[in-house]
């Protein structure tokens, strides 16, 4: 819908802020890791795809981008970031942002603490139209296969 609720929820969550008005009153630094982008009239939320073969991790000279397990979320280790911005250049989605005030890059980590605890990331919880979801590739494929099959059956039935 383009409401950008995911953006503000993301920015608040990563700053540990519940009350955005109060945070701005106190000058708390907040920035989102997800961006709603206009794609020829359609709002599309863009964020890190957690690539299996993550180019950002590969290019980082100081090991500031890490993941705990294969396929797990890629997160930043701010202390290690030297600010070369190579990851910003190589990310195919523009999902990594240079954050001047903190002097390191920021990116989506799918709110890994929450997901580990079995909860939805903040952006997903905030989306009023359920346009965002967390999915594992296997489940997603299975779901899509089922959907496509049902669709095909319907088409065939309609043609009968």
């Amino acid at each position, binding site marked *: 819908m383009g409401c950008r*609720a995911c*953006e*503000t929820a993301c920015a608040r969550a990563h700053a540990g802020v519940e009350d*955005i*008005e*109060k945070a701005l*009153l106190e000058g708390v630094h907040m920035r*989102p890791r997800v961006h709603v982008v206009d794609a020829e009239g359609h709002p599309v939320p863009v964020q890190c795809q957690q690539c299996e073969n993550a180019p950002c991790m590969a290019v980082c000279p100081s090991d500031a981008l890490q993941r705990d397990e294969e396929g797990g979320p890629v997160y930043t280790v701010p202390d290690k970031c030297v600010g070369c911005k190579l990851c910003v250049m190589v990310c195919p989605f523009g999902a990594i942002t240079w954050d001047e005030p903190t002097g390191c890059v920021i990116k989506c980590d799918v709110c890994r603490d929450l997901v580990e605890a079995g909860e939805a990331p903040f952006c997903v*919880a905030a989306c009023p139209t359920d346009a965002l979801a967390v999915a594992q590739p296997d489940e997603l494929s299975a779901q899509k296969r089922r959907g496509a099959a049902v669709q095909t059956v319907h088409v065939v039935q309609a043609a009968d």
Partner: protein
Amino acid sequence: MAGNGNRTSVDDASQQMIDHAAACGFELAWDRYQALLPQCDFGKLGICCTNCVLGPCRIDPFGEGAECGVCGATADTIAARNLARHVACGAASHSDHGRDVVRTLLETAQGKAEGYEIKNETKLYALAEQFGIETDGKDLRQVALEVAETALADFGRQEGVLRLVSRAPEPLQKKWQRMGVTPTGIDADVVRLMHATHMGVDNDPIHILKQVIRTALSDGWGGSMYATDCSDILFGGPEPIRSRANLGVLRPNAVNVVVHGHEPTLSEMLVAAAQSPDIRNLAEEAGADGFQLAGICCTANEILMRHGIPIAGNFLQQELALATGAVDAMVVDVQCVFPSAVKIAKDMSTRIISTSKKAAFEGVEQIEFDEEHALQSAKKILTAAVEAFKQRDPAAADLPDSSEHLVAGYTVESIFSTLGGTYRPLFRPLNRGIMDGRLRGVAGVVGCNNVKITHDWGHVEMVKELIRNDVLVVQTGCSAIACAKAGLMRPEAADLYAGKGLKEICDAVGIAPVLHVGSCVDNSRILLACVEMVKEGGLGDDLSDLPVAGAAPEWMSEKAMAIATYVAASGIFTVLSEPFPVMGSKAVRQYLTEGMEADFGGMLAFEQDPVAAAHLMIDHINKKREALGLTEMMYEMPEPARKAAAPAK
């Protein structure tokens, strides 16, 4: 939700009805709020502009996306313009209410308003004198006619200065002149402010805020003040009066009529009609033990102040009153009436009756009230209530039996009448108490309820903390109702909750530590009480010198935004729970919370924790005491509790 407790309301009767509503499957405001989460942050921050269809334009609050709208308006311009529209609406609401009271006065003077009379000649003549109207040899009606016409002219005034501005202390009037914010005409100031917010008109945030202040002042020192003055003239000046408050005032076997809304013209007439023999007979024939009138929101405060009619509840209790199933008619007019009332009442015998020409509800019966046939309209409404009573299923009703005693009816004229004598010198005990250090100062605690903070918790916690610290509290609106229900408006409250110095004053004067001074338009009474304190002497030359502060600990409405703005621009520090929806603009929030002080002597602060907010007020009062060179407080300040405890289940 602030409060963090597991209760929705700290008021037992309310909590009981909230639980009852849940059991019955009635949807309440709190449920709808949960369903709406998360609410839009752009809206909260005031940086979404829909003033033209080049937009909606939303400014990125994190400084990486759009910095201005299509037209080039920045976050500062947009937030200031949004605030302007809110304040224009708030001021318009008070002032349109005021206009109707003035018009009723006019029609009464012309002999056209059935059933009304002029009850307070003293106040009429005082206003005539202020207006420079010659009264010698004129009869009462003629004087009332000229006063009403003069007042009405202030609503339509196109140039010059609003008449009641001359009531403000000279230094304050000078500040307003210097800043170019002296109100002109009540309607014109609202229209000009709306014009300023059209795309591509006023772009400088501070300049917009000055226009906002002018319009707010023309509410506080205009529309609202006229509403209070003319209500007093028509319906009588309130005197201290005992009554009760909370849902328990409704009676299982009476025809329960709840008046909800704001304008006093109709409710006054309902009070009269309920006493007429024909209508009383109707109720008796239906097997009822008479009528029980009770109020919600400011209509409640108006008829409480003048007739001692009990209060059923405040803003967030409107649905709870209906959920009791024991309300036969809810008579509504304007402002703060939930459209959802219709939905709850649909399954019950309760009839919602809309009475204002200005407001209609889909699916609600309209018995339009007109001043010319006021008594007839009122009788028609009560007859409908009797019909509903006959349909009521007593088994389905669940009525909490709790209600609390209170004393209301304090005004500038009556505030110390318990001491005897004429009114001016009677501000002396108040000023003396402050100068001697018995009283720290005075606080006005006003405003609504808000689903974002535990119901009544903000009001009650803040007021208890203030009186504990020897601050006398005056209240209006739904805030007054909250504290009345909590027992803070009984004289005994001084023993239970007040600091030692305040208790001594309460005992000497025979008042409670928390005084009910009326409805939301009666915040003008608080301004005038401050003017009297300045005139009495010893506490400086301007309102901004006084050791006083204001607060709205559970506010929600645009009217509250207008009030907070005019109170701060009159020199009084004011703390609000929810921030104004302008936090996305640094320039706007800085001007409101800091810049205003240099220009007007008063400013705003935003703090959700009611006890922390009370201490912002106390610190400010102490600062003013120091500036005045007043003596130390007579009694030690109690251990500070700077954060409120969460309400327990």
